[in-house]
Structures are given as C-alpha cells and as structure tokens.
C-alpha cells in the first residue's frame, strides 16, 4: 500500500462566495455549509464561525475536530463506512488542507467536552489553537436523546470536512509525502537487519458516548485486528467519543496519528515498521482479557521485536493498557507505552489506576489534574456555562469576569496519549 499525502498549506480562512482554496487561503461559503448541516432535521439552527490562531476566541464545548481531506486518486473515499463506501482506502493520493480544521460545538452532548482557546496560556496546551478553524455551532431540536445528538453532530462534522476537502481536489499541494507499507513478508525481506516494529493502538470503546468507529464499525464490537497504517490517513478510524477532552483522540488526531508518522520517519533507517494492530478498551473484564490476548497474539504472530502501545482515556482503560503491555512483554516483545497521568492537582497522588514492573518504558502526556487559569476572551463560540460541569471543571470554574479556572483535563487534546504534544511530566 502506497499513499501520497499532498499537503496544501492553509494560512488563513475567510468567508467567500465560493468555497475554494486560493493562494493558501481557504474561502468558505457559509450558506452552503449551513444547508448541508441542516439536511439533518435533528438540528434547529446552525451557525458557522471562524477562529484563527492568535485571535481572542474561546470555543467550547468542543466535541470533535476534523481535518478536511479529499481522495484524488486510488480506491475509496475519505471516512469509509460513513461518508464513503467501505472500499479499502490508504493507497493512491489524498490531498489535505493542512492548517485548517472543522470544529463541532453547540449544546453540550456529554459531560466531557472541551475548551479550545485561540490565544493566551490555554492555547499552548491545545494543538488546535494553531489551526484555521471552521466552527459549526449546531443546536439540536428539543428532546433529542444524547446518543442521537452525538451521532448527528459527529456526522455534521464529517460532512463539512469532506465538503471543505473537495476544495483541495484540484489544487497543487505545497508538499507531497509518500507512505508505503509492504506485505509483511516482503517488508521483512526488504530490511532483514532492522528490528521489526508494530504499533498497537487502543481505541476508546467504553460505550455510553465513549466510542470509536473503524470503517463504520463500532469498535466495542470488534476483535483486535490488523489495519494498514495508511488507511487511517484516509479516515478509516473516526471519533465518536465524548470522554475527557484532554486525552480523547479527535478525528483530527486519528487522521494525523503521530505515532504512525514517527514510526514511518524511522522506517527503513533504524526500524522496520511492519504493521499496526488495533484493539479496544471495553469495560467488562472478559472483553479486556480477550482483546489484550488477541493483541498480544497478533504481535507474536507477525513476529515483531517491539511495539509502541497508545491509550485513549484514563482510569478504567489503564487496566487494558497494562494488560496489553504485560502480555506483549511476556511474549518477549519490547514495549513502550504512551499514556497520561491523573496525579491530583498537587501531583502527589498515584498517576495510574494500574501498574506493572514490566511497563518500564513509559511516555506521558502530562498530569491532567494540573490546574490552569484561562483569562477572559473577547469572543466566545458556543457556551461557557458547561465549564462548571465538564470533566476538569468544577463548581466555580467559570468566574464573573469570564476567566476560567480548570484542570488541563478540560482542554481539548492537552494530554493526548498518541504523543501529539510536547507536554510531559516528571517526578520531583
């Protein structure tokens, strides 16, 4: 599988009569976006707002962030199983509006939606402050059930991302990167002297608004399996997840999975990146045992020397993380795990709900309980009232002057467990 990823660098976003990319500026036709989202009569009103890096804007409660992409060559389309048929993606050529994103907000869906500040101290913690965001403020009709609301908002985001992605179809990208993975045996033949490495991605699947989808399938109903790493660059994995904002993987994170990119970076030089295993994080013990057994068995079967394992969420999934790590280590395969911490506001409590001496190589996205003060912003997109009740917020988080005191937990992507950020923590 060989995928060319053409990045069209977007340095600004503006409203315009026609949705197009012109000289690095993404112009969007507001009315077309509104009528696209309003196709779903679960929404009674839709607003489109723009938020650019450095502007005094706060977006909250953020549900998902999605990067616009378009498939220009090769089988299938972006977001297979949702916006396209389930043809296998991950080969040919895909164009990316790099530097732009669709952000979905509106009435809060779960308790755990996040904050994106486009400037100030909060902006340092969320990667999305660096993007030119097209924000959809979607208001659901009265009485819409949470699960239906989640699905409607998820689909709205995907639809608009695909719509915007189309604008990049005939634009010449500023850069093209090639990602290629060979069939397992050929890959081993090609680099016989390099250590064979796989990536084990744990997908949030606790249910009750904590879900992830693979080619349209709900991940909690899947067995651990192999997936081509380039498939996810075409949107094979998407977020349906309202878990704590700081360590949920938005669809943007999945499309740009940094572990996949950094493994490709070293591929053929220091390691042989031979494949990717996806496994879920269900809540029942039997599911945890089964899924981690299969993940470990697959790692053994493909014969790798080492794996990077990433987590999504915290607490309950810490047990899946440690099971995966321990079972894979016991197969004689070396592991590095990527997680984040809940060490209390003072940093003095136990960071993870589970631990094992075999987990001797850990990368942390930081302590999500650390408290931050976010100064008032000139403009709010969405509503700030929910910050008192979202995860990481507390009664009194929102102050009269519009400033907010919250744990990093409430900031979208702050302690990401795919290692998307530079944030880390150390012991003092």
């Amino acid at each position, binding site marked *: 599988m060989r995928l060319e990823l053409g990045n069209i660098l977007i340095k600004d976003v503006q409203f315009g009569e026609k949705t197009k990319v012109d000289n690095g500026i993404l112009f969007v036709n507001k009315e077309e976006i509104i009528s696209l989202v309003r196709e779903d009569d679960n929404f009674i009103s839709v607003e489109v707002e723009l938020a650019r890096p450095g502007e005094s804007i706060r977006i909250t409660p953020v549900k998902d962030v999605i990067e616009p992409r378009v498939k220009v060559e090769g089988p299938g389309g972006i977001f297979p199983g949702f916006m396209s048929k389930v043809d296998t993606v991950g080969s040919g050529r895909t164009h990316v509006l790099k530097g732009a994103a669709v952000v979905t907000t509106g009435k809060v869906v779960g308790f755990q939606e996040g904050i994106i500040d486009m400037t100030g101290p909060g902006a340092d913690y969320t990667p999305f402050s660096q993007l030119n965001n097209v924000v959809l403020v979607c208001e659901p009709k009265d009485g819409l059930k949470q699960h239906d609301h989640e699905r409607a908002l998820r689909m709205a985001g995907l639809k608009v991302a695909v719509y915007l992605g189309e604008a990049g179809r005939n634009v010449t990208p500023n850069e093209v990167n090639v990602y290629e993975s060979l069939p397992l045996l050929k890959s081993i033949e090609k680099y016989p002297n390099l250590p064979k490495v796989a990536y084990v991605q744990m997908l949030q699947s606790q249910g009750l608004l904590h879900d992830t989808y693979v080619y349209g399938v709900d991940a909690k109903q899947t067995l651990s399996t192999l997936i081509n790493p380039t498939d996810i660059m075409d949107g094979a994995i998407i977020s349906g997840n309202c878990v704590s904002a700081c360590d949920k993987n938005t669809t943007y994170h999945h499309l740009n999975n940094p572990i996949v990119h950094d493994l490709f970076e070293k591929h053929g030089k220091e390691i042989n990146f031979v494949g990717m295993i996806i496994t879920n994080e269900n809540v029942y013990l039997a599911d945890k045992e089964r899924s981690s057994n299969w993940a470990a068995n697959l790692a053994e079967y493909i014969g790798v020397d*080492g794996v990077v394992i990433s987590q999504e969420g915290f607490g309950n999934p810490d047990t899946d993380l440690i099971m995966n790590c321990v079972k894979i280590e016991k197969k004689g395969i070396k592991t590095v795990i990527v997680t984040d911490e809940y060490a209390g506001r003072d940093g*003095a409590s136990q960071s993870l709900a589970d631990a094992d001496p075999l*987990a001797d190589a850990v990368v942390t996205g930081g302590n999500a309980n650390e408290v931050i003060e976010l100064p008032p912003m000139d403009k709010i997109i969405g509503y700030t009232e929910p910050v008192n009740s979202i995860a990481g917020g507390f009664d009194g988080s929102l102050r009269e002057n519009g400033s907010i005191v919250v744990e990093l937990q409430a900031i979208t992507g702050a302690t990401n467990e795919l290692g998307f950020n530079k944030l880390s923590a150390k012991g003092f």
Partner: protein
Amino acid sequence: MSKLRVVHYINQFFAGIGGEEKADHKPEVREGVVGPGMEFNKNFGDDAEIVATIICGDSYFNENLEEAKAEVIEMIKKYNPDMFIAGPAFNAGRYGVACGTITDAVQSELGIPVLTGMYEENPGADMFKKSVYIISTKNNAAGMRKAVKVMAPFAIKLAKGEEIGSPEKEGYFSRGIRKNFFAEKRGSARAVDMLIKKLKGEDFTTEFPMPNFDRVEPNPAVKDISKAKVAVVTSGGIVPKGNPDHIESSSASKYGKYDIDGVMDLTEETYETAHGGYDPVYANEDSDRVLPVDVLRDLEKEGKIGELHRYFYTTTGNGTAVASSKAYAAEYAKELVDDGVEAVILTST
C-alpha cells in the same frame, strides 16, 4: 548578610559516644559542630553555619518516639534556626527512621526547611521520601564527604527558598510529585526513540517510573474450610470502644490485637473505628460492617467454618506507609501461623 543558622541532628555513633551499647543515649544538645558537622561547615562556606548539634541514641529515639520528638523539637526551637539537617544516616536503619521522623516533625511543627540523607534501601527513605527531601547517599559512612558535598549546597538552596530542580539534578529521592513541563520533542517521537533504545539494549529513561505494586499471588483455596480456624484482620480501624491502645486515625504507628472470645456481635456500645479516612458513622453504629464477627459466628454455629480465631488484629490503613503495614503483618502473620490459623479474612475500607 549574616550566615544562615543550621541545627544538625546526629546519633550517638557519629557523635563518637559509642555504638549499639550506647544506643539508649538520651537527647543532648551541644553548641556548634560535632562529628560530620565539620564537613558541613566546610561546605557551607560563608553562607551558613551549624549553630548547634543534637545527639540522640537510635534506640532511645525509636523506642520513645513521642517524647524524643518533643524533646528534640524543644532543643531546636531555642536556636531559632533557618534550617534543620539530620544525618546522613547511610544504611543505618533506625538512624534513618529517626532522621526521617525528626525532619518530618520539625518541618511540620516549626515550619522551617529540613533535609536528611540516606541510602536508598534504608527503610527511612521509603517512609519519608514523600514528606521531606532526602539526599541519596552511599550505604556506609565512607560516602560522607560525597554526601555532604551534595547536601550542603542543597540545604542552602532550601533555606533560601530557591527553585528546586529535578531529583536527578539535585540528588534527592523523588518525592513522587508530578509536575508538567514542555519537552523538546512531541510524545510520539519520544516513544519511538525510547523503543529504539530499548531494542538496542541501550539505557533509556522512562518518563513515569512504575510505582512498586507489591502484588501477592493468592494462596490455593483452603481444602476444607469447615474444619479450618479462621481469623479476621482489618485495616478499617475497628477497636474496642475507647480505642484502648490509641491507634492513630491516620498513619498508624501500631496495630492492635484484641480478644473476641465469646463475643457474638460487635455493637455500638462495645466497638468503634479509629480510622479517620472514611465516614465513621456506619462503622460505629455496627462494627460488624467492617469486621464481620456476627456472620462468622453464624457460620461457626452452622459448621461452615471450623472456628473463629480468638483474636483479631487491626490497624488503620489511612495514610499508613506501606513499609509500616508490611512490618506489622510480618509480626502478626507469624503469630497467626503459630496459633494454627489456616485462613484469614482481610477487610479494608
């Protein structure tokens, strides 16, 4: 600027009074430096000086904990110091525990910065590294000069309230306090780099050292529980009403052993909890909720268990160091075995 005033605590051995035979030496204070204090003064230069040295025997301190603590604190107070240093204790266990205990007490009662030093396997290190700064030293006094060379400037830093660096940089045992920072590379790149090092067998540093979860494999099932002598042990703090042995509500320094011969039911009038870490109302109303004596008596009558052991053991788990819990269990587990107990029900809260 005048020199910072430091009071130094050492044991009878480092004061040159004697070894084990003098370990019952009562606390005394001497003006100026004694023993290792000289090395400290040398390293302090013009920044600080030891104004007094307190000497106490290790046995005396550990066997008369409360009195010894109070006496030593009174002595320190008189000198109105800016800083208190104990040890270093290297691998001397009781000395290490004394150094940890007294620095912890001085820090909380006098509110001045404190510092001690010891070897990583000294039990005092595990017990106190979370509450006070402990510099990591070698396991014997041959490491004195090296230890003081690290401790002296670090003490000055603490006394001046300067910013404290990471444990690796400063040489203290990590207190387990996690602080965020922005690394040079993103997490995924750090993970891939770490994996490459691990695959090559090179040294790598985990960003989160796993806490040592002491997992115990369960024993095989009791063959015939209907013949077995069963005991109950709790960390839920259940004690006879009035807490006769004064088991602490938090960070217990002891455990209790109580006779329940003929006791059929733990009532509000006869038992209560000493535990300060949970809402005690329900445990005080009916202590069987934590220590199920009533139902075990039923099972005994019904012949489902052989018998209920005559004694129960109890302490409060609340904030009690793992090292202390282990020490208590090692003692009473031996008694339980000697008494022919074949099964124990451990209850927590």
